[in-house]
């Protein structure tokens, strides 16, 4: 049996603002994880990663992050990236969520 593929989202930091962004299924970048395209097929995820990585003038540090099938972070690092720091109400928690 092949191993199960953990769903992914394509994520990066925006070039100018430096904040966390995610790729949507319409090829836009969103600041809200809820709007990200959840990739459930490994081959498709790799293609989306390559496509996103080519957008050098928009983003920095593109990678695939694990999410649950409903698009929630599986690791605390991604949870902080989604929300912002815990010591001040700054970042995404103030701007997006």
């Amino acid at each position, binding site marked *: 049996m092949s191993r199960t593929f953990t769903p992914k989202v394509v994520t990066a930091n925006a070039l100018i603002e430096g904040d966390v962004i995610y790729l949507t299924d319409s090829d836009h970048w969103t600041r809200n994880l809820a709007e990200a395209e959840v990739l459930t097929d490994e081959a498709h995820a790799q293609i989306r990663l390559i496509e996103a990585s080519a957008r*050098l003038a928009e983003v920095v*540090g593109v990678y695939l992050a694990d999410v649950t099938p409903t698009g929630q972070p599986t690791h605390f690092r991604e949870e902080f990236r989604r929300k912002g720091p815990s010591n*001040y109400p700054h970042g995404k928690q103030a701007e997006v969520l």
Partner: protein
Amino acid sequence: MYRYTDFDAEFVATRNAQFRAQVARRLDGSLTEDEFKPLRLMNGLYLQLHAYMLRVAIPYGTLNGAQMRALAMISERWDKGYGHFTTRQNIQFNWPSLADVPDMLDALAQVQMHAIQTSGNTIRNVTADHFAGAAADEIADPRPVAELIRQWSTDHPEFQFLPRKFKVAVTGAPNDRAVTKAHDIGLRMVERHGQPGFEVIVGGGLGRTPMIGKVIRDFLPQADLLPYLEAVVSVWNLLGRRDNKYKSRIKITVHEHGIDDIRARVEARFAELRPAFTGVDQQMLRAIETDFAPPPFRASSPAPFEAAYVDDPVFRAWADTNLAGHRAQDHAIVQISLKAHGATPGDATAEQMRVMADLAERYGHDELRISHEQNVVIPHVHKSDLPAIHAMLKAHGLGTANIGLISDIIACPGMDYCALATARSIPIAQEIATRFDDLKLEHDIGDLKIKISGCINACGHHHVGHIGILGLDRAGAESYQITLGGDHTETATVGTRAGPGFGADDIVPAIERLVQAYLDLRTDRSETFLQTYRRLGLAPFKTALYPDQVRADAA
């Protein structure tokens, strides 16, 4: 204080113009991130978890009111209205936009500040004793030498692509407040036969492989300093490991080759380099020294201080905890705590920065310092002015009386900001401070240094904390490992790991058990946590930390 020469001002302006053009080329797509990254790092610009971060040097931790005011302005205009002071006497802005950074750097240049060499594989911002020029125990002010090293190392053509970063710290006092033994090079100013010189310590460092520095030269005459430093860095530049970044720092080079082998190589290189230094550097040092001449200390009655000390218990508690001995009669060194219980260690709002600038200008000969313990210092204050200073600090959330106590915690930004972090640091510091404030125990506990790092790189100096806390990722959860018995002073020691880590919910109760054990074990109030630990060793503290394991062993 040092004032930029025309050369300095021109140099910084030219660098800023270059970086502005580099940012423009990145934004228009001419530069890729791989090409741009080393350029931005050379100018202190990181990309962190949620945003860019600009790290600005505060050379040897010294700044004046106008500079502090400029930092406040920058934080409001281009950031979120606060700044974070770091363990390397820098300030970090956590939320700048890439497009604004060139303007921020120009604003810094207006007040003779920059972000050059606060990152990258170069010689970093030179740090010094934050009580320099004021401390009662000082042999000489280390800052002229630190400034000379800054000038020598800035854009030094041989040292722009080192195997890794390189950090220098200088102290002019026997009581080491600059953590010199945990630096790539630590310099301790000493005198021999009436001649000024240095004890040179090499190969210290924290991080993944903590090492206490070793003495490579017990007395180096002052005039030999730059050629000798150049020899050390030059030997390491050739020998240092570029194949493995975890083995690239000079501490590993010294460890692998042995201090005697390194010393022989350095002396040979020094013999080659020494003739090239014809004394111009010493002429420059003399000029720099005049910039650091002590301010005119006032001779007047300290009576207002004594009256407030008797009448006001809040003032008295603050004075007992936050003042340090000054070399001039009836003067004191004021330490301003950026560790209000529950606040983020090292953070100051723009308003607080302006208050500190005002106080320095009005009462402190226009001088401020940033300590590696993430506090601010007004180094030269006449005691009669202390009640007014305290009242102003108190009114702006800066009057916390906890310097050197359990809530005066060093904490790195951790995973709340840092892209390298494996766990958060700030909330742990906030919870410990809040908990011990609730218990009203911290003045009874006395001198106790807790230092927290959110990853193995040890920016929070956890190895040299009396209690060190290291945040790790264990199977997808934050886990905190405790080390005990570390010491950051002239008797520097790397702490010992106490045992398995604790989850985020268990770490504060664990610290509480540890401190309770100390209170039970100490001979009396005069025996500090570190002294008790040194007398008894790890065992009783381990029992306090892991009571279940002790019960299991007994069963």
